[in-house]
């Protein structure tokens, strides 16, 4: 049985393009539609998001890319008028099923938002907010989590001497990395990033892009961006959204060098958007 599948794979690899390591799918989106009131925002979205890769979602403003990423952790439900159909499976479980608790989903799917949104608390309290929420009370464990998360978010050296100062004293870029640390502190499997660098200066943006590169070893990252160079630099796969539809979804290299669809080509060559 094992050898049979292996042989089959080998033949596929031989006939297809360069050698590809097999990746597991973490999110399986099937015929997903979403409405805000009477306005349809997403049309028949089909996407498989791979594990431990960076998946970028690009497209012009209002194309539904933020809506889509917010559906992945059900944050979109905070909008009262929202309606959906189709399925989104996370690790083969339907996230909209009544058995799947939304708190449970969001414990393994973290999110970083467009504008840094730290709490008006100390840096330390910001990072341990998630673990504390999930019932971790031991000071020693919390201290370790704080240090580990801040190191992962490449912020530790800048803040280790002022962990108990208010997070609003940090610069915008530092605040965003603090939000990433806060998200890492709950040890999620997936990190969703909704235009995480659009409010930041170029240096902070570079830092966060490097961070994303380092994090993908341990996390599956989905990042929404309207910056195409950013998508090309940091992602493994890219989806192009337009007017609520997925126009093209492919390996980043392929999508940027040789787009299948005319509209994708027009967008990435800057003809609109």
């Amino acid at each position, binding site marked *: 049985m094992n050898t049979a599948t292996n042989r089959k794979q080998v033949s596929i690899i031989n006939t297809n393009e360069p050698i590809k390591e097999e990746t597991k799918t973490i999110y399986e989106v099937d015929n997903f539609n979403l409405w805000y009131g009477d306005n349809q925002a997403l049309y028949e979205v089909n996407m498989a998001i791979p594990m431990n890769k960076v998946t970028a979602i690009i497209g012009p403003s209002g194309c539904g890319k933020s809506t889509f990423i917010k559906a992945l952790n059900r944050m979109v439900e905070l909008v009262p008028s929202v309606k959906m159909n189709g399925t989104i499976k996370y690790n083969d479980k339907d996230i909209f099923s009544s058995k799947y608790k939304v*708190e449970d989903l969001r414990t393994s799917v973290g999110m970083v938002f467009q504008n840094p949104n730290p709490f008006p608390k100390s840096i330390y309290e910001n990072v341990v*907010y998630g673990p504390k929420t999930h019932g971790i009370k031991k000071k020693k464990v919390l201290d370790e989590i704080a240090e580990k998360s801040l190191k992962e978010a490449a912020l530790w050296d800048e803040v280790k001497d002022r962990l108990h100062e208010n997070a609003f004293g940090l610069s915008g870029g530092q605040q965003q990395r603090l939000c990433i640390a806060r*998200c890492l502190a709950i040890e999620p499997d997936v990190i969703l990033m909704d235009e995480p660098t659009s409010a930041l200066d170029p240096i902070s943006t570079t830092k966060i892009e490097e961070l994303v590169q380092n994090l993908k070893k341990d996390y599956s990252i989905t990042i929404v961006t309207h910056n195409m160079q950013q998508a090309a630099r940091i992602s493994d796969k890219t989806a192009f959204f337009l007017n609520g539809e997925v126009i093209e979804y492919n390996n980043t290299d392929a999508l940027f060098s040789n787009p299948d669809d005319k509209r994708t080509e027009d967008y990435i060559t800057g003809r609109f958007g």
Partner: protein
Amino acid sequence: MNLVDKKVVQNKMNKRIISNRIMRQMFFLASAFGIVVLAILLYRIFSEGLPYLDWRFLTNFASRFPEEAGIKAAIAGSVWLMAVTAPISLVLGVGTAIYLEEYAKENKFTQFIRMNISNLAGVPSVVFGLLGLTVFVRLMEMGRSIIAGGLTMSLLILPIIVVSSQEAIRAIPKNQYEASYAMGATKWQTIRRIVLPAAIPGILTGGILALSRAIGETAPLLMIGALSFIAYLPENIWSGFTVLPIQIFNWTGRPQEEFHLVASAGIIVLLIILLLMNSIAVLIRSKFSKRY
């Protein structure tokens, strides 16, 4: 071709500037009116009341003789009343605000309740007094006690506390909720650890202002039959009681001229208490505002 005639503009110039000056004077007079009246009032009260205001006045019970009359029982009654009113109205008011802002589904019924809470804030206090008399004093047989008075006062200031707490909660940016929910926090965890800490300055400010209104209210307590002449301190929440404004009201109603002066001294005490409470509210507001 010039559409704007420079000559007309010049001719109108003086007129515009003069009418601006006139309006400025009128608005100044409007503000001055209130300030002057307040100054006269304060001057009268202080000149009449100050001679009577001393330690003896604060520590004596009410008396038939103006020189011996004091406000000990009234101060104690006011403190007791606040001790009952503050926790009841704050717990009920903040709870209502949290439910309406965070948990209630957006529908016709919720909108109806929201609208009527604002309306309730405009109901005359005498009506609340009648309600207290019927429900607490008679129906629930609490008698003319501190608890009946405290519950009536709680109802009176409840709408104010609900509305100000709702505003404090609504002022919290949406991104704070998102950050908390996105980490798998429940609604209650978010309320307890993000919403309430951020809203508490606003809630306290509104609460203190509402309580300072309750301290100055007379009508509802007269309706439920608070006493006006007592020479003992309340022992528990079932005791009869009097409060500062009722004591003042009682003194001003007496024929002897001296009692009117004693009333002025009582008013000074009440004003100082109100001023203190309002200053605390202002202090809290300025200390905690602009955190985002």
